[in-house]
């Protein structure tokens, strides 16, 4: 018997307007409300509604089923504004009592890398929002894009969390398996849950890939793979974007049928846990030393997707340089705009790493090119600077 921990990440950014140099000082509407509304409604139709219905039915059908979610604060805001019905379904899911919600930075930001103070403030905002909407106080933390290192684990332990999630990357695991609970070095209590990226990505990335030798993937076959880990592990952490269901893997790939029939097969020999249950039940097997920044993105699993080129570095530097002035001014609107600019997606759109091959970075990019995103972002920063001076 192995413990299965499903964790879904729910996030949508506030995308920027194509803010022109001529707009500086003219208006301060940085975010494309129309487009954000359209996209959120589209994702709700394709993913949140159908996936929530499947999950809710499954939870009712199988009281032993457990799942966990993390929502960015800004996706929750957008759900409140543009799709309260989808939000209501999420609340129903949480109300089954079989669901754990995790904490993260409210703005899905890279703040941990640039300002610990801002990082903590955004976590506080997030905790408050989760309490308000779902009535839970999270005990487990996941950082934006699963960005992680030893230092983060220590910091998060000080804030009182019991566990933290990270990528189960071979480079740091070496001969060890991701299918155990671990402990970060030089910590007292906090536990580390590592994503089984092979099994997670079988669903998240490969499910509809016709060139994959396992295609088509059935729930039965997948359950069989999970059962096999029984010999080498106690827990399988399946972490993925919630948008996998219906948005990354479209409904016509059969992803919802797969999801609906999976628990039935998995429950035959296994058992579901939330992260908090996992760390209560399982003892850490070892400490895993992760001194450098690790994430769940790209083959590099580092932070180069957000801060690898000089445009990204310059945009981030310019943004975080404003922190002191902005916090001194105490202008709510300016502070809020500044925080929404911290969302990691803006920097992801400036990535030129795999630009030549035109891959996933391009598919999700609302701009013609990373240069256009940089231009809009920097124009906004300049407008923000003029507002700070004036206020």
């Amino acid at each position, binding site marked *: 018997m192995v413990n299965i921990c499903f964790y879904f990440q729910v996030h949508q950014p506030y995308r920027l307007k194509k803010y022109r140099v001529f707009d500086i000082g003219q208006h301060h509407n940085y975010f494309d409300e129309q487009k954000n509304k359209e996209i959120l409604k589209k994702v709700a139709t394709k993913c949140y509604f159908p996936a929530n219905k499947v999950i809710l039915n499954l939870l009712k059908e199988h009281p032993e089923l457990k799942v966990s979610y993390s929502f960015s604060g800004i996706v929750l805001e957008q759900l409140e504004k543009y799709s309260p019905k989808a939000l209501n379904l999420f609340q129903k899911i949480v109300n089954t009592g079989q669901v754990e919600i995790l904490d993260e930075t409210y703005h899905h930001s890279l703040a941990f890398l640039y300002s610990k103070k801002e990082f903590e403030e955004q976590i506080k905002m997030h905790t408050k929002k989760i309490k308000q909407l779902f009535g839970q106080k999270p005990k487990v933390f996941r950082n934006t894009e699963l960005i992680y290192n030893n230092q983060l684990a220590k910091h998060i332990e000080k804030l009182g969390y019991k566990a933290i999630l990270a990528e189960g990357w071979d480079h740091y695991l070496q001969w060890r398996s991701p299918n155990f609970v671990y402990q970060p070095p030089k910590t007292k209590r906090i536990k580390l849950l590592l994503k089984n990226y092979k099994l997670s990505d079988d669903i998240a990335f490969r499910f509809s890939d016709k060139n994959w030798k396992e295609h088509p993937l059935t729930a039965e076959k997948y359950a069989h793979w999970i059962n096999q880990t029984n010999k080498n592990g106690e827990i399988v952490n399946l972490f993925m974007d919630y948008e996998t269901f219906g948005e990354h893997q479209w409904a016509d790939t059969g992803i919802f049928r797969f999801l609906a029939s999976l628990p039935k097969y998995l429950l035959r020999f296994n058992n579901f846990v939330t992260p908090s249950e996992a760390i209560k039940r399982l003892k850490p097997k070892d400490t895993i030393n992760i001194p450098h920044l690790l994430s769940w993105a790209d083959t590099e699993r580092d932070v180069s997707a957000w801060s690898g080129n000089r445009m990204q570095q310059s945009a981030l530097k310019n943004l975080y340089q404003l922190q002191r002035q902005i916090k001194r001014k105490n202008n709510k609107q300016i502070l809020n705009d500044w925080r929404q600019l911290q969302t990691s997606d803006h920097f992801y759109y400036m990535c*030129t790493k795999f630009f030549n091959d035109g891959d996933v970075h391009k598919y999700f990019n609302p701009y013609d090119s990373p240069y256009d995103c*940089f231009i809009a972002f*920097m124009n906004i920063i300049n407008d923000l600077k003029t507002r700070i001076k004036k206020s």
Partner: protein
Amino acid sequence: MYGWEFPPHNSGGLGTACYGLTKSLSKLGTQITFVLPGLSKIPSADFIKIISANTKTIRINSPIIGYMTSQEYFKIDKNDIYGPTLFAEVERYAQEASRLAKTEKHDLIHAHDWMTYPAGLKAKQISKKPLIIHVHATEFDRTGGHGVNQHVYKIEKLGMEQADHIIAVSNFTKNKIIQHYHIPPEKITVVHNAVDFTNFKSNRDFKINKKDKIILFLGRITIQKGPDWFVYLAKRILDYDPNYKFIVVGSGDMEGKIIEKAAELNLADKISFTGFLRGPELDQIYQMADLYVMPSISEPFGITPLEAMRNNTPCLISKQSGVSEVLHHCLKADFWDINKMADQIISILKYPEGYQHLKENTAQEIKKFNWDEPAQKCLSLYKKIGETKW
């Protein structure tokens, strides 16, 4: 191979492309006889310009030059042997040029753009060898879709229908051929152009003065290339920031109109017109510029951005171009979106990290665009067409 022009006697990208392709094909072992029109006035050394041991050029006496219009043909001094109109001359030229199909040994005929299609078709009748026509531009590109010359259209359509295969310089062009000439897609292969790297190198700084940013237009001054949009763009930028200079390089039927337009908008001291440039001067002017702009309204490929990049100058290119399919590290906009283009230019020059990143990537990306790959694609196609035919 039938072409219109060859550097140094070229007036546009067609000659540059033919030269680059021929050079790389002959390097790959293909023997090429390049036939093109020319006046006996041109010194004989240029008649038999040796590109490589594999290649020879033959000039057929004719006053046709690349991108010539019927009106322009009317104006030139003509010898009695030449046709009275451009079309008559293209026909006469086809007769003369196709005669070579009897005497010059060949396995395949490759004809570049409409003026040579009749020659290619006649040569095919004579030698029964397969014909590939290479579409560098269609009448729809040259006229911007307005006032398509029916006579030219018919010649193009006939060539496309009767050829054994068609090479298009981009998907953009392939789609035009399907849409406007009703050719089945499987008959068309896309071979993107490239750029020759034997350019003029200099360490000199050609900047006019340090304060002003220099924005360059380079191309024939004709509706297809969007020179009027360039002038409006200059106006939009200068209204925001006067520390810019604009340079227009090239000549063409709209030259007078564009100069007048610049004067009318009070930009006479801000826009310089240099006329047609070639050789080291061409590279110098690219190096002088901070950014090269190609605002073409319909550009089948567009080699000039590659020439700019070869000179380490970043580009802003119109999305209505073939080169935008293959070029990533550049700015792109619709040719009519003056506000966006002005924003891109001002902003990228305002934020040095963005400009430097673009410039570095420009230098990296241009390395991919050498003529060996397109030549290799042509060669594979020759073999494929040859096999089915012979």
